[in-house]
């Protein structure tokens, strides 16, 4: 019986076509994309620093300031996602908007908006973690492993 678990080796025709496809497919413009990502990502992080500086001026403790900076960026991202502006920026910025916490916030807000039409439970509630879910799951998993290492070797 043919098992589907075995990965099929590409046939000569498939290999040849793969070569043809690679030649015919334009590559992403790596230099310009990287530059845009660097500038936009840098600006977002600078905004974080500015927020940090402003919050420090208030009566908040250092711990509270450290929590408030990402919270502000998340709220701003949610608002800009809702206004339809975040996607437009991200089309150009790529990793620049994706890597900071803005990307994480957008990945939760965007499906929550998209699946509103399926209702609060099966739509927004169930679908809001479809993109961010794996990050949360494996992030928690990694934290547990790190916790064990920390507990047994460092404490």
């Amino acid at each position: 019986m043919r098992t589907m678990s075995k990965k099929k080796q590409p046939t000569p025709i498939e290999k040849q076509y793969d070569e043809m496809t690679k030649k015919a497919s334009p590559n992403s413009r790596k230099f310009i994309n990287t530059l845009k990502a660097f500038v936009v990502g840098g600006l977002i992080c600078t905004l974080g620093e500015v927020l940090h500086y402003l919050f420090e001026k208030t009566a908040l403790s250092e711990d509270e300031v450290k929590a408030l900076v990402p919270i502000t960026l998340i709220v701003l991202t949610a608002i800009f996602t809702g206004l339809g502006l975040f996607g437009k920026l991200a089309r150009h910025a790529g990793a620049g908007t994706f890597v900071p916490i803005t990307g994480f916030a957008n990945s939760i807000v965007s499906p929550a908006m998209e699946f509103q039409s399926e209702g609060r439970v099966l739509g927004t509630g169930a679908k809001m973690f479809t993109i961010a879910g794996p990050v949360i799951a494996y992030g928690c998993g990694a934290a547990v492993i790190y916790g064990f290492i920390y507990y047994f070797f460092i404490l």
Partner: protein
Amino acid sequence: MPQKQGNVLLLPSQPSIIANAAVVGKVEGEGPLAQEFDFCYPSDTINGMETWEKSESELHRDAVDRAIKKSGVLKKDIDIMFAGDLLNQCIGTTFGIMDFDIPFAGLFGACSTMAMALAMAGVFCDSGAAQYAVASASSHFCSAEKQFRFPLEYGGQRSPTAQRTVTGAGAAVMGAKTNAPFIEAVLFGKVQNYGITDAANMGAAMAPAAASTISDFLRDTNTKPEDYDIILTGDLGSVGSNLLKELLKTKHNFDISAIHNDCGLMIFEQQQDTHAGGSGCGCSASVFNSVILRRLGAGELKKVLLVGTGALMSPTSAQQKSPIPSVAHAVCVCSD
């Protein structure tokens, strides 16, 4: 009765396309073919519908309604309707046409659906199984993104090989031979798999199907590329079109570069940032049912081979990293 020549079905009675209509969304209405469409909606929310799926259904309904009204044929005289779209269980179609009271056979051919529907309608009209038949297809950028890719507001970058699903619907009403354009022959394609797994490069996945169908059609009908004014593929985009021409030249010994065009390349302009071009059932449906049929009807084009191309994958098969099989169906339309 249809006659088989190789795998091609010749339609000796040459059914006429009596009327056709195409309606599109906002971005398509800003493209180079805007003047050709029956109506360009100002946004992708169609007639105030509250979901993208309902918007697609409304778009589909509108295209069919316009085509039937233009044809002057009464709905009760239409014997069969062949239609389909990209959404799961073809809800884009069924929820749009459910009030028409016309016998309905739903089709799924991914982006090849328009050509498939025309071929089915042609065979039905030629065999006498239908006096009048409707063929239609639709797709919607937002409902397709939601089902196959990411939420609309998700901030991501797209590959330069990716294509934009057309928000559009096209419909044609077919009947016994009267005025041009006529359906001369059809060919249902065979599924091809060349091992492409990149869902952001559908053009590459579909080009082998188009190459196989075009070469089969030319061989079975003993015709040459020069016999056609246009060999029009559905939605190969820029990457797939180049691959098609190369495959036909190297594997099948046909050079179609002088007369090839692609609906996905026609519907958008480069500046519209649609990467490799348009795609979706609505792409070939709206382009064919507007500018192509108009020019055929006016005699500007004598013979067109429409080759609808479809990538037969689902989100599940893509996640399981299965290669993307594809199919292409051909419809030969002429004006004399």
